[in-house]
């Protein structure tokens, strides 16, 4: 039963979340490779989301059923990104060509 968790544990999780938020801002401020920045930031955001779900939403102390239900959208979202992949290429092609034409017309 998810009850009577130590309030110290909640405060510990709060300090982890605070530290990760500060770390995220430190990582986000300088200019460098967007890919590296995205991987670092998404990794930290998933860590924070995991802490909220596991401890504040008590998922760590629940039955397996709820864990399986909560995990499902994560898996589907990964599929979603793969399903979007063909569109990503098409959109990049379409938007860069007129941009080039527009800059060519200016000169």
């Amino acid at each position, binding site marked *: *039963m*998810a*009850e*009577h*968790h130590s*309030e110290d544990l*909640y*405060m510990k999780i*709060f300090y982890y*979340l*605070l530290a990760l*938020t500060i770390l*995220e*801002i430190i990582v*986000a*401020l300088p200019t460098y490779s*967007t890919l590296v*920045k*995205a991987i670092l*930031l*998404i990794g*930290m*955001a998933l860590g*924070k*989301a995991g802490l*909220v*779900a596991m401890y*504040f*939403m*008590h998922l760590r102390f629940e*039955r*397996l*059923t*709820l864990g399986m*239900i*909560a995990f*499902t*959208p994560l898996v*589907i*979202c990964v599929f*979603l*990104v793969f399903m*979007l992949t063909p*569109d*990503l290429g*098409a*959109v*990049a092609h*379409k*938007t*860069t060509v007129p*941009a080039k034409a527009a800059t060519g017309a200016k000169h």
Partner: protein
Amino acid sequence: MSEAAAMHAGHAESYESPLTPESWGKLGMWVFLVGDAMSFGTLLAGYGGIRYGSADWPKPYEVLGIWLTAGMTLLLIVSSVWMVKGLAAIQRGDQAAFRKFIGLTILGGVVFLACQAYEWNKLIFHEGLGFTSNPYGASLFGTTFFIITGFHGMHVTGGVIYLLCILLRGMTGAYSANNYNPVEIAGLYWHFVDLVWIMVFTFVYLI
């Protein structure tokens, strides 16, 4: 007779299955949140796809600024802590602490919404960020920004109303150390709103 006995046995077996939740209300909220997570997942994946395909996407942290929203992120995290403290209070039967912490959680949500209203007002009327056009680059930058943060803001609004109902019912003495399930279920919704903002803050503001 034997058939009926078999049916009864089957029923008893399914009831005692480890997959049976301890609270149907909690299961219902989780199922709703999973659907809602897919809504946000789709919005964020769509945002990523549009941004990846755009040649002139502005740098979000230069246009939007991150300090106000970093503060809003902390505010939601703190309000989540107040929520768990409110739940812990009612679990030990402390009505006064329960009211105080749920009240603080609601206040956190209201201040968050006020910050968002201030931010939207500044962006729309002072910095020219429109729904369909803006001076910074790709027109969909504004569209995706307003749809994603607006959808989240509606969730915060819903959460504030939901928690107000919990607080008002709590003030009539509806909840106690033996009956706190509705508070826990409302808490799930509130933490989910916090969790989603963590993702929105990362995708829309930081990257």
